[in-house]
């Protein structure tokens, strides 16, 4: 086991809440990856006779549909598992695209300085001042809903935070003596950026990416709920909650199941992010963890 991994695992053991959170996130990841094999059935197979069944421990529930069925008789457990796929896939793609784009721009702005920095920073500022979600809704209304378009819209809306973070970190790293030494020794710009600056950004970016992943998953659920996100026959928790709205008063269970799936994942991710931040930031760590008593 590499050294950094064993030290991360060591840190993890100290914090039971973080351990639980990491386990939950891993479970969701596995469920999303293995959905076709572990889901009890086809998420879209309808059964008008067996509609609106309760969970198996409830009156009228059956083990065939452990979490019951929705208004079309579709198996809730299978839909929740497939829903994890859509959420995580969209989340990861957006973080990948927006994160790469924003980080590169931020590093370039921070490293080059001068006019480059000014232009990039202005664009970042201006776009941050945009009413993001409203514009996202507008763009989706025009180009149409669907997973690909969601990823595009979120990526366009989400790169600025990476750019700002990468820029400010690069600015401080650039002034470090060892970077100046590398520059003086004639290291090439690319070597300095990829060899020194990016590795130093890593822990901050991991924290940021985890937080953003959680945020995107929430945003995806909102847009799907509003009808401009994921569309049937794809499965999404937000879409499931939208479908459940009609039955909110008679069958609240239909809201709770996808709602809980969503909230638990996002909460676990936020716990992981705050834990990563504490172990990665020595200042925060000394300030907060000095008191173990």
């Amino acid at each position, binding site marked *: 086991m590499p050294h950094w991994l064993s030290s991360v695992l060591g840190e993890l053991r100290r914090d039971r809440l973080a351990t639980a959170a990491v386990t939950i996130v891993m479970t969701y990841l596995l469920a999303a990856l293995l959905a076709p094999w572990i889901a009890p059935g086809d998420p879209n197979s309808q059964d008008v006779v067996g509609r609106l069944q309760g969970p198996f421990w409830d009156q009228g529930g059956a083990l065939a549909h452990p979490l019951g069925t929705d208004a079309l008789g579709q198996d809730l457990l299978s839909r929740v598992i497939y829903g994890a796929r859509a959420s995580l896939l969209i989340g990861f793609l957006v973080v990948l695209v927006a994160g790469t784009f924003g980080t590169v721009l931020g590093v370039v702005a921070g490293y080059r300085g001068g006019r480059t920095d000014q232009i990039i920073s202005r664009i970042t500022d201006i776009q941050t001042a945009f009413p993001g979600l409203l514009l996202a809704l507008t763009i989706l209304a025009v180009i149409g809903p669907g997973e690909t378009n969601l990823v595009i819209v979120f990526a366009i809306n989400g790169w600025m935070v990476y750019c700002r973070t990468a820029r400010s970190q690069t600015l401080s790293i650039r002034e470090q003596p060892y970077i100046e030494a590398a520059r003086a020794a004639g290291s090439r710009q690319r070597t300095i950026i990829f060899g020194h600056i990016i590795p130093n950004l890593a822990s901050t970016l991991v924290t940021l990416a985890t937080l953003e992943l959680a945020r995107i998953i929430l945003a995806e659920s909102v847009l799907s709920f509003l009808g401009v996100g994921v569309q049937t026959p794809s499965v999404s928790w937000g879409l499931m909650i939208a479908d459940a709205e009609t039955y909110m*008063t008679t069958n609240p269970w239909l809201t709770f199941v996808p709602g809980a799936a969503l909230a638990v994942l996002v909460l676990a991710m936020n716990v992981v992010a705050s834990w990563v931040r504490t172990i990665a930031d020595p200042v925060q760590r000394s300030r907060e963890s000095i008191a173990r008593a």
Partner: protein
Amino acid sequence: MLTFLARRLAYSLIVIGGVLVVVFVTTRLIGDPARIILPATASQADYELQRSRMGLDQPILAQFFVFVAGAVRGDFGESLWDRGSSAMGLVVERIPATLQLVFAGVGLAMAISIPAGILAARRPRSLLDRVITLLSLAGFSVPNFLLAMVLIIVFAVGLGWFYTSGFGTIRHLVLPAVAVALPVAGRMTQFVRSTMIDEFSRPYIATARSKGVSEPAIAVRHALRNAAIPILTLGGWEFTRQLAGYTVAVEVVFAWPGVGQLASQAILRRDFTVIQADVFLVAIIVLVINLIIDLLYTVLDPRVKMV
């Protein structure tokens, strides 16, 4: 002071211009308003006629100037759905309800998060801190529309304390405001906590203690006063974020007659003029609020010299 204001205004104009460009590009170039207005059965001739009537056959730049000239006067034409009503008029009508919801929601969030954040920051890593931190994480891990539905199920349907939907009285306002507030309160509590931990560790706090100032007075008069600017900044940011789309889903669930609900309907109906007016007006309100916050800085911090 004047230069500062001038610069902020110029900056705001650039943002407004950017918003107009994006709105124009998406609704005019990518979308096709003429096609939307006409029934699916319309002939090619009808389509051409509709295009020229809407000015869509003009050169793009000319179209843009007409669009901007209208926007400056607040005129985006009539609603494509509700013929005869001005798009801007529909939006303006709905603004007060949304402002009420956002004020109540963000105000409630601040009322929760400031004391909670201070309590957590007093003893980092204590049991109380861990409980508050976990609750605040939970707060912003639940999307507000889900919260809205759970609140309806429990407090409106189950207990019957509040209304499930509608607008007007305080009993209508409570549940939507709580649904808006809790995720905001979660984020803000985390922020207040870390800002206050920073402040509590500063030397001037030790000085205040050495003067015999009591702990509550240290927290409020000294630490919170110094943390006020970042907290206010975040509060303002949350406020504008809510305005800029985050209340849409809550308004839909509670049938709240605000701009969010209007925007959601307009999007589903492809009512582009209303969408344009909505985005434009919200962008302007957001910028005005940001300007007010900038001005508040000078009141709160004597060191901020606006040059």
